[in-house]
């Protein structure tokens, strides 16, 4: 479904990604784990078109999308839940969700089916649907960010640190929902610092260090890998 081949990205003169390749197959949850600053977010930003590639190629659903502008990728079925949630603070929960459907919605097409699904996954959002997004708690904002991305009816969902800043209980909840969404047929590429949770939910994983992929395997193999254990799972 997604094939990233040898991409390189520079911030000014600094090389952020060094020949990164990875792939995600239909139906999978693939996780990309690594330390702060390793390049995880840059990989996602490159895939969704927010970051210009210096070299390399990105294919999505068999098409070369390396230079497709970000706003057109959503309509092709690629939604990105950005780091830090980035909900629209001055819009209500409902309006945020409605905006999420921009890429496919024509005129006043009915959203109730999509909304119902999201409210079922995140009942809190239904309770707060008329509240402005800035007034939500961190966990609720994360739910909204995921819900908003789902409104785009994605085939592939890119998730950037959905656990960031959430309490352990909320992290559990969010991951449970991600599992459910995957069950509904949405493929995922999940970037996480919380490697333990990520490897628990994922089928396969990649480990990134200093802008390079250094290891890739099934999630269970990675969980048992001594280096991964030491570096990312707390020994």
């Amino acid at each position, binding site marked *: 479904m997604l094939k990233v081949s040898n991409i390189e990205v520079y911030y000014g003169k600094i090389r952020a990604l060094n020949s990164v390749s990875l792939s995600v197959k239909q139906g999978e949850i693939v996780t990309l784990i690594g330390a702060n600053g390793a390049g995880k977010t840059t990989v996602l930003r490159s895939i*969704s078109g*927010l970051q210009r590639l210096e070299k390399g190629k990105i294919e999505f659903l068999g098409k070369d999308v390396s230079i497709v502008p*970000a*706003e*057109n990728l*959503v*309509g092709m079925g690629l*939604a*990105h839940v*950005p780091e830090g949630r*980035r*909900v*629209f*603070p*001055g*819009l209500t929960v409902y*309006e945020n969700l*409605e*905006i*999420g459907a*921009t*890429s496919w919605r024509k005129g*006043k097409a009915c959203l109730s089916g999509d909304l119902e699904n999201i409210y079922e996954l995140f009942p809190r959002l239904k309770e707060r649907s008329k509240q*402005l997004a*800035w*007034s*939500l708690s*961190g966990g609720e904002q994360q739910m909204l960010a995921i819900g*908003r*991305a789902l409104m*785009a009816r994605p085939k592939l969902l890119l998730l950037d640190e959905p656990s960031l*800043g959430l309490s352990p209980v909320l992290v559990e909840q969010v991951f449970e929902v991600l599992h459910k969404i995957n069950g509904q047929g949405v493929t995922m590429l999940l970037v996480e610092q919380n490697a333990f949770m990520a490897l628990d939910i994922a089928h396969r994983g990649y480990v990134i260090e200093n802008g390079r992929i250094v290891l890739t395997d099934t999630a269970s193999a990675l969980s048992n890998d001594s280096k991964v254990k030491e570096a990312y799972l707390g020994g």
Partner: protein
Amino acid sequence: MIQLLISGLAMGSIYALVALGIVVIANAVNVVNFAQGENVMLGAYVAATLTLTLHLPILAAYAISIILLALYGYIFQKVAYYPLRKKPFITVVVATIGVSMFLKNAARIVWGPQPIYFAGPFGESMIRVGGVSINAQNILIIVVTLALVVFQHFFFAKTSLGRQMQATAQDQEAATLMGIKVSRMIAFTFIYSSMLAAAAGVLLAPIFYVSADMGANLGLKAFAASIIGGFGSVPGAILGGLFLGVLEIFAAAYVSSLYKDAFAFIVLILILAFMPRGLFGEKISTKV
């Protein structure tokens, strides 16, 4: 007393319209447009030329002026904003100052140094209510401003385009990820702001003379009004504008008309010193 209040509200409505134009752009692209006053002047001159020189009916002239300013707004952002959008705030602000100087001097060349008198649709007619007579143009200004404010509220709150423009203003990158065409939304914002300027210009023309210099003071006062109201806040811009208009008129009537402008800026300084978020400013509403 009533007459003063009405003319204060009328002048305040103009400030409010200009301030709104400044605020929608500031919110969308984080740039203070110092050419907004000159945009008002341009709108007034265009309508005056269409009526006085080309003898078009006045309402048609108003409409054409607003449409031409919409086109101008598109060009303005292509020239003065878009190429500089990744540059620091101050670079773009200086570009808008450049545009304002260009417009002022171009107007002086095209329309000459003499102010033009351009009457409104009601001429000099007065409306008598009870014992007081009120300038009909002032009533028109207040009514049209009110209608525009209601329209704007409806447009941003209820229409899909308005929501997309709001989303773009709040977070451009997140808006891109939703599939919103961000550069198009920004262009719309500039177009809308220029149309507001044209509306302010044609409304203001009959109570001000149309001149190349009319914009400078107006832009500055509107900027002050938006700060007094709480910069970035739409209700703040409207209320700040009205407040400033009324304050000026009363200061001119009861204290000294010579120092009318001084009062506006004294209030601005007091507000900046003691209530930096403005009279009606929103409480800072970010939450991590």
